[in-house]
C-alpha cells in the first residue's frame, strides 16, 4: 500500500508530534511520542498515556532497549529502525536490545495509515522523523542531566557510545547513571537533530540485526511457536468461495493414530492431533460434504468478462485537468488500448499459520502478522472478549508480500482453539494457502491518448477497473468512491496536456477475498502507463527513452534515474537478433525507480530475462545494502508474476495448488541484476515495492523491442512470442 499523503516532513512533524509524557518507569527513562493521529484522539482512555511510534527504554544499569513498531518480514525493518534510533541516541547497535512492539494501535499506529500496519513500503517513511526525534530527545535529556550535575554548559557536552562526555574537564557519565536525573527534567520540545554529515549509522550498510539467528535455525517464525502442551491442527476450508460446511463423519479421522479431535467450523473442518502429520492424515481420511453456495459455477472467464463489461461503465472521475475529451476530439490521431491483469496469489514461503490458546477469560496468540493490532481486534471480536484479554506474541514473518496484512487466519485459529483445551497450532497446507488467499484481483484498464500532428500526446485518459481493497481494509484510503490505491501511478510521472483518471469499482463475487499484493496499485498502473508510452514512442517513430525524456520536463528526479539506468544498461547499443531492451519508470512510494530489462526470445517463443539494471532514488538510503536487497528481491518477485503469475477459477474453486502449478522463479532462471542508488539528501522513500512494480513493463517493453509483439495481458504468453 502506498502512502498517499506525503511522508511526514520535518516541519510537519514538529507541529504534529509532541511529547506527551515522560517518566521514570520501572527504574528507567521512558520517552515516547504521540504523532497527531486521529486514532489517538479517539482513544481518550490512553490520551494521557505514553504514546506512539517507537520508544526507547534505558534502565539504571544502562541497558538500552529500542522498541520497534514495524515488523520484520525480510525487508530489514528491524535494522533500519534501530539505525534511526541509535544514531540520534548516540549508541551503537551492539549496545542495544531490540524489542518488537506489541499490538497497540494507540501507541504504534503508522502516522499516515492511522493503524498499526507494516506495509506500503511506508515503514521507514513512518519512522524517519519519529524515531530520530525519539532518539534525539532522550540524548538531549541525558546531556542536560550530565551538564547540570557537573555545573557546565550543556552545549559543551557531547555523547558517544552511551556516554555523555565533557571534553574540557574530561568528565564522563554513562547513560545508566543519568537516568534518574534525566527523568526529572522537562521534556525539550525543540530538539536539534544531528547534522547528516556526522551520521555514523544512517547511510551506512550496517550489518542486519535479524540475520545471525536466521542462518542457524534459531530464528522463531510464527510457525515455530511451541507453547507448552501445544497440539497441531490441519484445516480444510470450503474449496468453493463463500461455501459452508455440510456434513462430515468424524470417525475416519478419529481412527488415525495421534488424532484427538475433529473441529467443525461453519466454513471449515480442522483435525487436531499430536503432530501435524497425524492431523493431515486425519483430515485426508474425512469425506467432507460442502454446501457450495452461490459461487459454485464461478470461473475465470466470467470474472474477466465482468471486468471487461465494467470497462464500458462510467466510473468516478478521480482527477481531470484540461479538457481531455475536447483535446481528443481535435487530435490528429488517437491511441486506445485495453490491458488485462490476472488474479495473483502471494505464496510466501512460510505457509499461513497461527497458534492460539483460548481460555475462559483470555486468549494468547503466537503469529507473524503485518497488522498486529487488527489481528488482536479480530481475535477479541471473534471470541467476544475485551481486546485487553488478547495477548499476541509477535514473531518473525516468513514473507508477507501483503498476505499477512490480513488476519483471517488468526480469527480461524481462535475459532478452532475455543473448542479445545490447551494451545493449538493451525498450519495450512500449501494447497490451502494457495486456495484461500486474499488475491490480487483482476484489474483491467483502458487508456486513450489523443496525438497531434507532430506525434505529441495532447490528452491522456485512463479508466481503471478493479475492486476496492481499501474500502474494506483501510477505509480512510477510500474517498468519494475512489480507492486511492487503485489509482496510484495512473498517469506516471509524465506531463500530459490534458488528462482524466476514472475509477470503476468492480468487486469480486462474495467469498472471493481480495487483498494487497507487493507493489499494490503501481504494480498494475505502471505496467499500463509504461506500455502505453512505449506504444506511443513506436507510433511516433521515436526511441522510447528519448520519448519519455520529452515528457519529463517537470520531473528532474524521474529524468535522472531514467537516464542513469539507460546509460548503465548500454541503451542504444546494438543487440543480437532475438534480444531486446525495455525501459520503465516509476515515481511512487516516495521513490523514483527506472529499470532496464534485457530479454532474449527464441523463435519457439521461449523467453529468458537476461539482465535487469535498476536505478533507484529513494532519498536518503538509510541502509544502502538493504535498499539493494529490496530492489533485487522486488525484481525477482515481479519477474515470477510476469512469467508465471496466474490464479484461475473453475467451479468456484482455485485451480492451482502448489509450486508445480503456480511456479515461481528459481535460481537457474534468475537474471543478472544490477542496482544503483542515486545519492540523495531527500527524505527516505519506500523500497519494498517499487522494484516489483517497475519490473513488468521493463520486461514487456523489452519483448516488444525484441519481437515487435506488444503484450497487453499478463502473465506473458509465450505462444504470442512464437515466430510465425
Amino acid at each position, binding site marked *: 500500500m502506498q502512502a498517499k499523503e506525503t511522508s511526514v516532513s520535518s516541519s510537519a512533524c514538529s507541529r504534529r508530534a509532541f511529547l506527551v509524557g515522560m517518566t521514570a518507569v520501572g527504574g528507567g527513562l521512558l520517552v515516547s511520542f504521540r504523532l497527531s493521529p486521529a486514532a489517538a484522539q479517539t482513544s481518550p482512555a490512553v490520551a494521557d498515556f505514553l504514546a506512539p511510534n517507537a520508544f526507547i527504554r534505558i534502565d539504571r544499569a544502562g541497558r538500552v532497549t529500542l522498541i520497534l513498531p514495524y515488523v520484520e518480514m525480510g525487508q530489514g525493518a528491524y535494522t533500519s529502525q534501530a539505525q534511526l534510533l541509535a544514531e540520534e541516541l548516540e549508541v551503537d547497535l551492539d549496545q542495544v536490545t531490540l524489542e518488537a512492539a506489541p499490538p497497540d494501535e494507540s501507541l504504534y499506529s503508522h502516522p499516515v495509515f492511522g493503524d498499526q500496519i507494516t506495509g506500503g513500503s511506508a515503514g521507514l517513511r513512518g519512522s524517519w522523523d519519529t524515531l530520530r526525534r525519539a532518539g534525539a530527545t532522550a540524548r538531549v535529556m541525558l546531556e542536560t542531566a550530565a551538564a547540570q550535575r557537573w555545573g557546565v554548559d550543556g552545549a559543551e557536552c557531547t555523547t558517544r557510545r552511551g556516554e555523555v562526555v565533557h571534553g574540557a574537564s574530561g568528565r564522563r557519565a554513562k547513560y545508566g547513571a543519568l537516568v534518574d536525573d534525566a527523568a526529572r527534567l522537562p521534556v525539550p520540545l525543540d530538539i536539534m537533530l544531528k547534522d547528516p554529515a556526522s551520521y555514523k549509522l544512517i547511510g551506512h550498510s550496517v550489518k542486519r540485526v535479524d540475520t545471525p539467528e536466521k*542462518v542457524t535455525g534459531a530464528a522463531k517464525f510464527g510457525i515455530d511457536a511451541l507453547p507448552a502442551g501445544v497440539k497441531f491442527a490441519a484445516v480444510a476450508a470450503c474449496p468453493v468461495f463463500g461455501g459452508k460446511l455440510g456434513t462430515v463423519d468424524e470417525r475416519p479421522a478419529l481412527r488415525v493414530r*495421534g488424532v484427538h479431535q475433529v473441529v467443525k467450523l461453519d466454513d471449515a473442518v480442522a483435525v487436531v492431533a*499430536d*503432530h501435524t502429520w497425524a492431523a493431515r*492424515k486425519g483430515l485426508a481420511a474425512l469425506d467432507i460434504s460442502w454446501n457450495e453456495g452461490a459461487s459454485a459455477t464461478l470461473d475465470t472467464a466470467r470474472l474477466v468478462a465482468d471486468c471487461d463489461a465494467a470497462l464500458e461503465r462510467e466510473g468516478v472521475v478521480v482527477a481531470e485537468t484540461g479538457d481531455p475529451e475536447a483535446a481528443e476530439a481535435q487530435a490528429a490521431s488517437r491511441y486506445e488500448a485495453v490491458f488485462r491483469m490476472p488474479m495473483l496469489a502471494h505464496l510466501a514461503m512460510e505457509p499461513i499459520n497461527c497458534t492460539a490458546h483460548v481460555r475462559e477469560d483470555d486468549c494468547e496468540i503466537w503469529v507473524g502478522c503485518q497488522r498486529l493490532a487488527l489481528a488482536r481486534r479480530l481475535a477479541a471480536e471473534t471470541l467476544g472478549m475485551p481486546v485487553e484479554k488478547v495477548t499476541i506474541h509477535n514473531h518473525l514473518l516468513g514473507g508477507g508480500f501483503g498476505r499477512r496484512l490480513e488476519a483471517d487466519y488468526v480469527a480461524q485459529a481462535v475459532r478452532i482453539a475455543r473448542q479445545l483445551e490447551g494451545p493449538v497450532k493451525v498450519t495450512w497446507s500449501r494447497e490451502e494457502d494457495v486456495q484461500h488467499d486474499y488475491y490480487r484481483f483482476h484489474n483491467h484498464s483502458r487508456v486513450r491518448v489523443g496525438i497531434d500532428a507532430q506525434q505529441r500526446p495532447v490528452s491522456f485518459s485512463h479508466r481503471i477497473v478493479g475492486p476496492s481493497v481499501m474500502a474494506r481494509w483501510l477505509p480512510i484510503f477510500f474517498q468519494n468512491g475512489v480507492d486511492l490505491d487503485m489509482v496510484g501511478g495512473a498517469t506516471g510521472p509524465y506531463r500530459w496536456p490534458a488528462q482524466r483518471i476514472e475509477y470503476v469499482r468492480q468487486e469480486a463475487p462474495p467469498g472471493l477475498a481480495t487483498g494487497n499484493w507487493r507493489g499494490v496499485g503501481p504494480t498494475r498502473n505502471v505496467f499500463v502507463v509504461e506500455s502505453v508510452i512505449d506504444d506511443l514512442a513506436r507510433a511516433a517513430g521515436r526511441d522510447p527513452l528519448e520519448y519519455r525524456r520529452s515528457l519529463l520536463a517537470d520531473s528532474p528526479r524521474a529524468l535522472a534515474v531514467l537516464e542513469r539506468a539507460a546509460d548503465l544498461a548500454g541503451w542504444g547499443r546494438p543487440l543480437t537478433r532475438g534480444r531486446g531492451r525495455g525501459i520503465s519508470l516509476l515515481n511512487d512510494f516516495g521513490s523514483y525507480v527506472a529499470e532496464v530489462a534485457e530479454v532474449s526470445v527464441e523463435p519457439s517463443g521461449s523467453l529468458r530475462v537476461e539482465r535487469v539494471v535498476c536505478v533507484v532514488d529513494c532519498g536518503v538510503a538509510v541502509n544502502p545494502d538493504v535498499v539493494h536487497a529490496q530492489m*533485487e*528481491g522486488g525484481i525477482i518477485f515481479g519477474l515470477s508474476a510476469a512469467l508465471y503469475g496466474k490464479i484461475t477459477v473453475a467451479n468456484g474453486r482455485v485451480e492451482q495448488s502448489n509450486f508445480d502449478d503456480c511456479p515461481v522463479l528459481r535460481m*537457474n532462471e534468475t537474471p543478472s541484476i544490477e542496482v544503483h542508488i542515486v545519492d540523495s539528501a531527500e527524505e527516505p522513500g519506500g523500497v519494498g515495492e517499487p522494484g516489483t512494480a517497475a519490473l513488468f513493463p521493463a520486461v514487456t517493453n523489452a519483448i516488444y523491442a525484441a519481437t515487435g509483439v506488444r503484450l497487453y495481458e499478463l502473465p506473458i504468453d509465450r505462444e504470442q512470442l512464437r515466430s510465425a
Partner: protein
Amino acid sequence: MQRNLTVNGRQYPVDVDDDTPLLWVLRDVLGLTGTKFGCGIALCGACTVHVDDAPRRSCVTPISALPDGARIRTIETLGELPEGKVLQQAWLDVEVVQCGYCQPGQLMSAAALLSVNHTPQDADIDAVMSGNICRCGTYARIRKAIKTAAAQLPSAEAGTERVPAMEAHG
C-alpha cells in the same frame, strides 16, 4: 512404531506411524523447528536435511524409509561441518538473508554441494540450488555466498562428483 532416530548426534526415541515424514517428527515431535515446512511435496526445498551426509527433502521422507541407524543432520548443527561453518559466515558476510524462512533449506543444500565440490561452477550451483525456492529473491546472493564459502575450503579435497546425489524430487 517405536524407533530410535539419531539427529544431530543425539538419540531420540520416537513413536509415530511409519509413514510420518521426517519433517514433522523433527518439528513437532522433537521440537527442532529450524527445518521448515514449505510445500509438503518436495517442490521448494525448505525442509532439506542431511541423511547420512546426503541432502534429503524431509517432507517426503517417511521415517520408515530411513536406513537403520541413519545419521540425520539439521540446520541446528550445520555449523559443526567445516563447509557449514564457512557457508553460514558467508551468508552473513554477503547479507544473503531477507525473511530467512527458506534459508535453512538453502544452507543445507549448499552444504551438501560443497561437501562434494569445493570449486562449484554456476552450472553446479544451478543444478543443486534450483530446487530451493526463495520468494524474497536472494538467489544471486546465495550464488555469491556459495562461491565465497567455497574459496575458503581446501580445493585439494574436492571429489570427482560435481553435485551431491539427490533422491528424485518433484
